[in-house]
């Protein structure tokens, strides 16, 4: 299982990388952590003629807090986010999700930008970003633009980013006072892609939840925002009755599918079990 031959370039600026992408129009691939791209090259699912290694572009990496938001450079590695005190304080949902993303050796290389650009339907980060009203910053030949996370993920592995554009940063609002986040997933082996996973975020006043977000991953082609379940919980106290109502609403929100790992029915069951877990954890004193 070896990749087809390709050429290799290591630009030192975003401008230079964009120039190479434009020149090879559609025949070049950006190499970030390589933890998803190299397997696809090894399996020859993709045979670009040029790899553009962006690991030499210093400004693409790092976590900074500016005003009400946290900016994470696209090349920031999973391990840096996992260990960041700024993330733990201002975006606790990411801190909760990180340990479930792959395994330590993969988190040492994999990047947030790569994970978002790849848009694997079972990835945790896209769901987190949708729940947190985040913005994806994309740089292309025409300049810099921002896209709301919920509009970025179009369909299976399809995003709003064009072939000749580069993701440069992710911007996430700091968690507001009184808000809490919860995360849970079920995978065959810790760190592998989940069979079903969910993130929850909202304002908690005792056990009453408002401005509630519930976003699933690994249940469809993109992150799935469970709007009916969100409506069912809005302004409600978390108790057996409201949890059952939210679980029922998922029959409308989710169209689960069967694959090698579990059937559609089991996936729906998991979604309901996980919903109960995150709701309970959200309001846990």
């Amino acid at each position, binding site marked *: *299982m*070896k*990749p*087809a*031959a*390709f*050429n*290799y370039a290591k630009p030192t600026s975003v401008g230079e990388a964009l120039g190479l992408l434009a020149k090879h129009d559609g025949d070049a691939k950006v*190499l970030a952590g*390589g*933890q998803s791209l*190299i*397997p696809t*090259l*090894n*399996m020859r699912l993709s045979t670009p*003629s040029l*790899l553009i*290694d962006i*690991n030499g572009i210093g400004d693409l990496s790092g976590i900074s807090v500016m005003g009400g938001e946290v900016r994470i450079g696209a090349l920031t590695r999973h*391990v840096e986010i996992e260990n960041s005190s700024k993330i733990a304080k201002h975006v606790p949902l990411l801190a909760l999700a990180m*340990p479930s993303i*792959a*395994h*330590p*050796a*993969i988190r*040492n*290389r994999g990047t947030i930008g790569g994970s978002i650009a790849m848009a694997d339907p079972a990835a945790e980060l896209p769901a987190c970003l949708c729940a947190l009203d985040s913005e994806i910053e994309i740089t292309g030949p025409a300049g810099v633009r921002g896209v709301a996370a919920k509009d970025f993920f179009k369909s299976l592995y399809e995003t709003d980013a064009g072939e000749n554009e580069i993701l440069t940063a992710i911007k996430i609002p700091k968690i507001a006072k009184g808000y809490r986040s919860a995360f849970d997933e079920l995978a065959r*082996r*810790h*760190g592998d892609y989940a069979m079903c996973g969910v993130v929850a975020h909202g304002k908690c006043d005792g056990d009453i939840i408002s401005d509630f977000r519930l976003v699933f991953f690994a249940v469809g082609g993109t992150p799935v925002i469970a709007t009916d379940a969100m409506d069912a919980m809005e302004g409600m106290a978390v108790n057996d009755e409201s949890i059952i109502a939210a679980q029922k609403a998922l029959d409308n929100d989710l169209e689960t599918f069967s694959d090698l790992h579990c059937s559609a029915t089991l996936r729906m069951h998991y979604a309901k079990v996980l919903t109960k877990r995150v709701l309970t954890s959200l309001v846990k004193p």
Partner: protein
Amino acid sequence: MSNKIEQVQLDVDVNGEKISRMIEPRLSLVDFLRNELELTGSHVGCEHGVCGACTVLVDGVIVRGCLMLAIQTNGAEVMTIEGQSDSGAITDLQEAFHERNALQCGFCTPGMLLTSTELLQKKSDPSREEIREYLSGNYCRCTGYEAIVDAVEAVAAVRRDV
């Protein structure tokens, strides 16, 4: 599609030795180590990141040798199981694996040793759960993991005492 492939110059430090070679860009780090440098302690299992047999250290952190191109280590320091073993830094861990039958065929062992070494650097007192979690990306088809967790736990305890 005709695509003229240019070889690239790699200058890398492997186990403390400076190496310079012209290589093909598509050459993976683990294939470079095994086939060009004959360092066959890093193993090749799945070639897509799942098994952990190819684990090596690049600039001090564990990575998948099958998911990094050799050229990406240009200017970096690579340490393989051979280097770690010769340095004496993991002799206690190797002995604990041996004593507890934490290896049978040995295919997974280099990856297990390097991954548990990184865990013990980060945490001197990991729980069994944490050991399992840190090693979750390394498959072992022989031991059933229990003896591996025992070995890592035992070394952590001894290292804390000295």
